[in-house]
C-alpha cells in the first residue's frame, strides 16, 4: 500500500479500436509485472473480452440490477496473467441512462476502496465515445483518471470525436480534471493517414503517442478471444503495443488541448477532403491509364 495508483482513461468513438488497444496495453503492462485493472465503460460490456478468452463477464450494473447490495469483488474477474477485469455495463439501447450507469459503477468501486485493496499500479478506463453526457465524463473528472488518451484513425468521424473529447477535457481542466496525454493513432497504414493525424494534433497542440497499423494479426488474435500480446507475442504488432504501453506507463506530463471550434473543424476537414479527392482522382487516372 501507500503507492499511488496511476489511472488512465482511453476514449474514442465506437468501433475505433479502444477495447482492442486498451486490452493490449493492459496485457503488455501485466506482462511487464505491473498490477493492472481494465475498467470497461461501455454499455456493450465487451471491453475485457480478449483478456479473458473471449468470455463476457457480469457487469457491475448487472449485479446492481439483481441485488440490493453489491460487493464490488463480485464484479472483478481476473484474466491474462492476473489482469483484473471490470465492466461497468449498462442498459439496453434506447432505455435508461448509460451515463449514470458509469457514475454508479465507478463510485461503487471507489467507495469500497478496491484500487487500494488490490494494490494496483494501473487502472485503465476504456470509455465509449466522445463526451456525450456528464456520466461519460466521470473518468476525466477530478480524483479519477489523471491522464486521458484518445484513439483516433484518420477518419473524420473519429477525429470529430477526438476533438469533442478535447473540449470535455478543456471544460474540466481548470477544475482539477484529467489532462490530455495524446492521441493513439489507430489503423494508420498510409503516409496520408499519418499526415492527417499529424496535422490534427499540431492544430490542437497535442501529440501522437503511437501509430498503430491495421493488422491481420489483431484480427486473428481476436478470433481466438485473445489479445495480440497473448496470441502472437513475437509479432511486430505485439511489439508496437508493448512500445505504446511503455510510453503510456512512463507518461507524466499531460496538457490542456486546444480543440478546434465547429467552424475551424469544418474548414479543416474540408481542406483535407479536397486533397483526398485529388489523390483519389490521381489514382483513378493511374488505374485507367494502366
Amino acid at each position, binding site marked *: 500500500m501507500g503507492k499511488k495508483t496511476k489511472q488512465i482513461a482511453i476514449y474514442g468513438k465506437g468501433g475505433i479500436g479502444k477495447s482492442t488497444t486498451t486490452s493490449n496495453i493492459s496485457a503488455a503492462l501485466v506482462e511487464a509485472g505491473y498490477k493492472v485493472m481494465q475498467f470497461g465503460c461501455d454499455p456493450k460490456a465487451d471491453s475485457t473480452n480478449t483478456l479473458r478468452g473471449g468470455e463476457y463477464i457480469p457487469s457491475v450494473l448487472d449485479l446492481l440490477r439483481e441485488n*440490493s*447490495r453489491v*460487493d464490488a469483488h463480485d464484479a472483478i474477474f481476473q484474466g491474462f496473467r492476473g489482469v483484473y477485469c471490470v465492466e461497468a455495463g449498462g442498459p439496453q439501447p434506447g432505455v435508461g441512462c448509460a*451515463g*449514470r450507469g458509469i457514475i454508479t459503477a465507478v463510485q*461503487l468501486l*471507489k467507495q469500497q476502496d478496491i484500487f487500494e485493496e488490490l494494490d494496483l499500479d494501473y487502472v485503465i478506463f476504456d470509455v465509449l465515445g466522445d463526451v456525450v453526457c456528464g*456520466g461519460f465524463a466521470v473518468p476525466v473528472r*477530478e480524483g479519477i483518471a489523471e491522464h486521458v488518451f484518445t484513439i483516433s484513425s484518420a477518419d473524420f468521424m473519429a477525429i470529430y470525436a477526438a476533438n469533442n473529447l478535447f473540449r470535455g477535457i478543456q471544460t474540466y481542466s481548470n*477544475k482539477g480534471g484529467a489532462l490530455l496525454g495524446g492521441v493513439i493513432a489507430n489503423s494508420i497504414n498510409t503516409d496520408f493517414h499519418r499526415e492527417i493525424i499529424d496535422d490534427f494534433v499540431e492544430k490542437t497542440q497535442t501529440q501522437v503517442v503511437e501509430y498503430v497499423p491495421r493488422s491481420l494479426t489483431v484480427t486473428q488474435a481476436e478470433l481466438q478471444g485473445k489479445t495480440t500480446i497473448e496470441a502472437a507475442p513475437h509479432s511486430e504488432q505485439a511489439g508496437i503495443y508493448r512500445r505504446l504501453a511503455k510510453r503510456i506507463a512512463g507518461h507524466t506530463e499531460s496538457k490542456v488541448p486546444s480543440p478546434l471550434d465547429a467552424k475551424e473543424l469544418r474548414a479543416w476537414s474540408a481542406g483535407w477532403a479536397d486533397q483526398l479527392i485529388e489523390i483519389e482522382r490521381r489514382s483513378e487516372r493511374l488505374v485507367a491509364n494502366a
Partner: protein
Amino acid sequence: MPINLKTAVVETREQRLGTIIGWDGKASDLSHESAYARGGCASKCGPKARRICELRGPFTQGSICSEQMVECQAGNVRDAVLIQHSPIGCGAGQVIYNSIFRNGLAMRGLPVQNLHLISTNLREKDMVFGGIAKLEQTIRDAWERHHPKAIFIGTSCATGIIGDDVESVATALEAELGIPVIPLHCEGFKSKHWSTGFDATQHGILRQIVRKNPEKKQEDLVNVINLWGSDVFSPILGELGLRVNYVVDMATVDELAQMSEAAATVGFCYTLSSYLAAGLEQEFGVPEVKAPMPYGFAGTDAWLREIARVTNREGKAEDYIRNEHARVKPKLAELREKLKGKKGYVATGSAYAHGLIGVLRELGVEVDGSLVFHHDPVYDSQDPREDSLAHLIDQYGEVDNFTVGNRQQYQFFALLQRVKPDFIIIRHNGLAPLAARLGIPAIPLGDEHHAVGYQGMLNLGESILDVLAHKKYHQDLAAHTKLPYKKWWLDQKDPFLFARSV
C-alpha cells in the same frame, strides 16, 4: 475499513450496513438474522453489512428521500447555507423544514429565524447543457447574501443523472471564499432508505468541517447527536459535570467543528447517530458511547454508566441514578395503574422504536406489534453494546408482530387489524391519518427527546393518557370516513401478500 472519507460520495446504508425496508415476523427472528447474532458470514457480505432476506413487492407508496434528510440536517445549521442543486421541486421541502426549524429554535430558546436554503432552480435547458454555471452563481449568491460560515450543496436526482460535477465547483469556490463548501451527495434514487441522507450530511461534515487537529480538548464536552428536540440532555449530563454540544440541527458551524475536541459522542437513536459517532471515533479519536440507548431503567442506567466511564465520572453517575430511580418509581407506579390493560403500537424509525417499546413496557402498556421504517442489521461501530433490538428483546421480551416497511400506508391497515391497539406512537407523517380513520388515536412525537431517560417514561405515560382522551374524536371520525382501498384488500390478512423474498 468502516467509514471511507476519501470519496465525496457517501456509501449508502444498504451497501454499508445491509439495510432492509421490507420484513415481517417476530422481533427475535429479525434480531437473530442480524449481524450481531450471526457474526461474520462467508463471502457475500461486505466487511460490515449482513444480508437479511427482504420482502419486496410491486406496490409501493411514496417514501421519503435522502435529500430530505439533508435538508433537515445540513439545512438546519444556523450559520450555514444549504444549496439545493436541483429543479425547484426538491426545494419544496424548505417549507416543512423551515416550520420545524423555527419551532425547534423557539423550543430551545434560540433566536427564531427562517432557514437558509437556496434552490439553483434548474430548468429543462440545464438538463441538456448542465447545471454547473447555475450552481456557481448560487454559491456566490449565498455568499453575498448571508456570508455564511459554510455552504452545503445537496444534489438531486436530476443533477445525479446528468452527472453535474459538483465537486470541482465546490473545490474552486472553497478556495476562493475561504469557507468550507461541502457537496453532499443525496440523490433520492441512490438509496432505498432516507437515512442515507443522515449519513450524507455527516459524511460531508466529517470531511470538511470537523477541526482536523484540535489544539485543545474539552474534557467536559459531549457531542449529542439529535434533531430539534427539547433540551433534556443538558440537565442529565449536567449532573455528571458535562456540557452538551448538540449536533447537527440548530448547531453553528463552529459547534460542528469542535466535535473533535469533545470527550465523547452520544445519541438518542443509533439510526441517526451511527455514522457520525463512528466517524468521530475513527478519524478524531472521540470515543462513541457504546451502550443501549437511554430509554427505560435498564437502558438509561447502562447509558449513563458508560458515559461516566468514558468521561471518568463514575461516582457522580451512581448518585444520579439512585436519586432518579427513587424519584421516578412512585410516579411510574401511578401511571402503570392508570394505563393498565392498554395496548400500544409503535411506528417510527428503527432504533428509536426499539427504545420506545421498552418505555411502553416499563409503563405496563402491552406492545405486541411495531412497524419500523427500516432495519439496520448492524450499526457502523459494529459494537454489540449498540444492538438496540437485542437489548429490547433481552430486557423486555418478544414483540410478536414486528414489521419493517418504509411507511407504506396500504399495509398499515392489516398491521393494525392484527393487534388492535388502543393508541399508536408515530413519527413521520402519513400513517396517523389512516389510524385516525380507524378510530385509533396517535401520539405524534414531534419532540424526539420526549421519552428519553427516566423522566421520559413519565412524559410518555402522560402523553398516552392525553391522547386516549382523543379517542372520542377518532371514533366519531371512523364512523364517517372511507378509505381509498378496495374492500378486497382491506380483507386481506397479509400486508405482504404481493411481496416476495429477495
